[in-house]
């Protein structure tokens, strides 16, 4: 065969291949881009918890989602990774409360009792192997906190034990909805001495409720309740 003619065929073949690759990649990319574009604002606003994602294209798709919540210079990233072969559906689970909880535990001190401004930054990295990488980013400013919406210590009853001491029954109630199912610990400071740490778990509504009986000296008649969530401890003074 004439080498020039063979060269001509090679060029034609490579053009044909590049057109096929171009069409497949552009189609796959456009489909993924429209899907991402459709759901990204909803993720940023925390409106969706589960997003169906189907790889309608012809190329294997890898998706990396990173949600970053920034409060007072502290940034808490939450990352998720998905691999979706062509034609396969998957669900992207992003529960805003999970993201918030994880983020808030890291910045607990800032948001425990105050409302603070937070930036929610969502980035989606979709890799259509091996030709295109799509990065979509959206950011919004919001307010988070206060985390602890209710904190109450009630003296339910006092009984005299003897001339110098009384027995007091205390009910401690704390509500922190975003900290549902997290582990807490507490101890009491009675007559200036701390008791052993006790552990408890917030229920699914983020409520913690416990009752303690303490014997107090009539001279002091005050008790401190120290409650800790992760590294944040709060001491509540109670006059009896």
């Amino acid at each position, binding site marked *: 065969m004439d080498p020039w003619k063979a060269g001509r065929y090679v060029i034609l073949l490579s053009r044909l291949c590049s057109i096929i*690759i*171009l069409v497949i990649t552009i189609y796959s*990319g456009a489909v993924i881009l429209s899907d991402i574009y459709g759901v990204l604002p909803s993720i940023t606003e925390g409106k969706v918890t589960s997003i169906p994602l189907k790889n309608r294209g012809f190329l294997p798709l890898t998706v990396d989602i990173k949600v970053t919540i920034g409060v007072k210079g502290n940034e808490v990233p939450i990352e998720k990774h998905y691999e979706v072969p062509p034609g396969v559906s998957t669900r992207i689970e992003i529960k805003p409360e999970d993201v918030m909880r994880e983020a808030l535990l890291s910045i607990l001190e800032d948001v425990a009792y105050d409302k603070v401004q937070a930036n929610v930054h969502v980035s989606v990295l979709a890799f259509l192997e091996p030709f295109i990488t*799509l*990065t*979509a*980013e959206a950011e919004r400013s919001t307010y988070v906190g206060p985390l602890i919406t209710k904190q109450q210590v009630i003296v339910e009853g006092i009984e005299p034990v003897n001339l110098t001491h009384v027995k007091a029954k205390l009910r401690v109630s704390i509500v922190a909805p975003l900290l549902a199912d997290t582990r807490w610990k507490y101890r009491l400071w009675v007559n200036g001495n701390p008791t052993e740490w006790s552990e408890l778990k917030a229920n699914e509504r983020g409520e913690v409720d416990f009752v303690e009986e303490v014997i107090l000296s009539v001279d002091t008649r005050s008790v401190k309740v120290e409650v800790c969530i992760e590294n944040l401890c709060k001491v509540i003074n109670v006059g009896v």
Partner: protein
Amino acid sequence: MKKVLLSLARAALDFLVIYLIPTVLLSSLSIPYQFSATAFPIAIIVAALGGVSMYLKGKTSCFAANGLRSAFFSLYLFVVLSGGVITLAMKSVLVTINMLPLLIVIIFPELLNTVYNFARWLVLTRKKE
């Protein structure tokens, strides 16, 4: 006269396909992407070289024109696709598309065509000498 008209038609068709249709499509589909300002003169050069190669069809210099056209077309693709990294600001979403591997796949046949045509032009020119 017919040759000149055919060449002009080829140049116009080239310009229509590589520049006019894509720009019209981008604006009609509301895709917030604009071709670089340098894309326009390069598109004119590509179209003109397409016309010239049509005019020179059958002559040795046609290969040189073809090779040059492919080289400029590669440059045009590189400029139009912003070197393979496109950034689109769509309302509140910022989209970055890194398509460098795809750009290489698209440009490769054009570069191959450039080499082929220049090689053929050189061989034929030397044979003549």
